[in-house]
């Protein structure tokens, strides 16, 4: 191939320094969205360009990288990003949560608790939690500056008034270190409790919107709620058909044209590890959905 030779992890060192400065600022002000000069990346906006830039900037030759999308190492986008870094940085990659030093994720936090020294990099589509209440950036930045979060509570209250529940099931807003309201990226609210007091560093990169933010290790992160309507973590009424887990987030898989379906762990590493340890599937037929 006559393609030009790229720097370690694709980005040039000047760009990495700029991104690292943004990351440091983000860590210093937990939950605050730091603007950064996001670059064009060789994958489309929306595919994780923010996460990729953050990962590229923190990756060293000794790092071991894991990439997941929807909890799985094998989804197309995760495979593509993993391949990108193994090609441009030559780092070792893994599917094991505990073995990884850097984990880039889209839409999930691994089931296995993270440890000190690990970094979880989130891909973020819309970093602004207030965006759907107020589309203008000039307004939302002012609202953050003044901690003016009443609008968000009104939205959650309207949900309760209308549906009897807070009708936000993913990208559920949180308050970081009692100061900034933050969008945790579109993780299911099932994962929200894992954000708080986490031993690992959590970095969030939004490429198209040009923002980086962070939750430093052991930071308190509270999901927004009301005293009489406390935050309810999502619970499945099913268990994984492959490993029998009852404590993991499950994906629904359609198995035929009649609507038969089964549930399996979204975190494939967790599921495989459980099966390897002998936790077994209960043999069961897929359940059909007629008339439900």
């Amino acid at each position, binding site marked *: 191939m006559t393609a030009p030779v790229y720097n370690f992890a694709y980005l040039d060192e000047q760009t990495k320094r700029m991104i690292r400065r943004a990351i440091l600022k983000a860590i210093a002000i937990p939950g605050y969205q730091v603007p950064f000069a996001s670059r064009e990346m060789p994958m489309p906006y929306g595919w994780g360009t923010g996460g990729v830039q953050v990962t590229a900037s923190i990756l060293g030759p000794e790092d071991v990288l894991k990439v997941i999308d929807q909890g*799985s190492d094998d989804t197309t986008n995760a495979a593509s990003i993993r391949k*990108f870094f193994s090609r441009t940085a030559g780092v070792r990659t893994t599917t094991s949560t505990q073995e990884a030093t850097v984990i880039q994720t889209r839409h999930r936090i691994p089931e296995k608790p993270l440890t000190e020294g690990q970094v979880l990099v989130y891909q973020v589509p819309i970093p602004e939690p207030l965006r759907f209440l107020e*589309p203008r950036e000039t307004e939302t930045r002012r609202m953050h500056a003044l901690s003016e979060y009443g609008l968000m509570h009104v939205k959650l209250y309207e949900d309760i008034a209308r549906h009897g529940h807070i009708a936000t099931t993913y990208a559920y807003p949180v308050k970081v270190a009692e100061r900034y309201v933050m969008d945790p990226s579109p993780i299911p609210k099932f994962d929200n409790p894992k954000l708080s007091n986490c031993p690992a560093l959590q970095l969030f990169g939004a490429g198209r919107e040009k923002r980086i933010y962070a939750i430093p290790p052991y930071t308190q992160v509270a999901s927004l709620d009301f005293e009489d309507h406390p935050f309810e973590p999502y619970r499945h009424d099913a268990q994984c058909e492959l490993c029998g887990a009852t404590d993991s987030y499950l994906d629904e898989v359609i198995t035929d044209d009649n609507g038969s379906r089964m549930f399996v762990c979204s975190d494939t590493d967790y599921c495989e590890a459980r099966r390897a340890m002998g936790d077994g599937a209960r043999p069961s037929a897929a359940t059909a959905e007629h008339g439900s």
Partner: protein
Amino acid sequence: MYVAVKGGERAIENAHALLADVRRGDRSVPELTLDQIDQQLALGVDRVMSEGSLYDRELAALAIKQARGDLIEAVFLLRAYRTTLPRFGVSEPMDTGAMTIRRRISAAFKDLPGGQVLGPTFDYTHRLLDHDLAECDDVATAPAAPAQTQPFRSVAELLARGGLIEEEKVSDGEVGDLTREPLSFPANRDLRLQNLARGDEGFLLALAYSTQRGYGRNHPFAGEIRYGEVAVEFFAEEIGFAVPLGSVALTECQSINQFTGSATQAPRFTRGYGLVFGQSERKAMSMALVDRALRARELGEEAGAPAQDEEFVLSHSDNVQATGFVEHLKLPHYVDFQSELGLLRKLRAEFFAREKSVEDDAAMQDAAE
């Protein structure tokens, strides 16, 4: 001296000759054939067919060649040809559930019968310029697998069966055609979808994007996107049954959107729909998002964003109309401009006269004191 009053006809002829000349370019470079355009610029052909509302690859390729690669100009050429064709009638509703699948993905379910079929897609390519492609490149035949035989109609239909998504209302009335009847507001969904299907990809893309960024948000999931061939049938009065006319390649996007519910109606998902000729997921997805945004009022949502404003969207989506009116500013406007110029000179003269008289008054007053 610049007094170009005569010789317009000759100037136009010469300009056209020059256009033909630069269109052909360097004669030592081989001329493009329509087959080459059809095969190697296939997505451009798809777009021109879609926005030109005419399914004919050869004519679309010709239009692209004639338009020097300017796709809106090519759409224009195709539309101008289409308008001369007689209209025999309307086909039977096409059954996209029976599509011969080349690509079919769902972002809502991890797996579904027949699996996720990626097909020919840029999605997971790394956008690194492939310098090998600059030279002639021998491309190996792609690996093939037997076609899926497991039937699977659609994700939306499956959800509808469980009541989880709204039923699509079937209209038995005649299908509208805005190429034959002027559009009036409020428009029915058939005309709205026709307008969007013909609408400019870039315009719909920007509108769809604006809904994602909070200007009329509607929480979309790509329930299903499929691309492949679908048979077209036409009911022939003379023989009393539907006869096959052939097949067309289509991209269909069914979006699954935020649920609504009321005191009398259980919460459920709502839908947006996109359908275009050929392979164009960007257009089909944008169309589905904008279609859903335009249903805001019908679904009792707050509607203040541009993408939710039917008149705004449908009146400005057509790129042939838009480019015509924007570019018409190049035409001579000497007469109007002359009268504006005359008025402006008069107003300025009055302004300065007023100013001078104020100054004179002030000077007189000074002298008097």
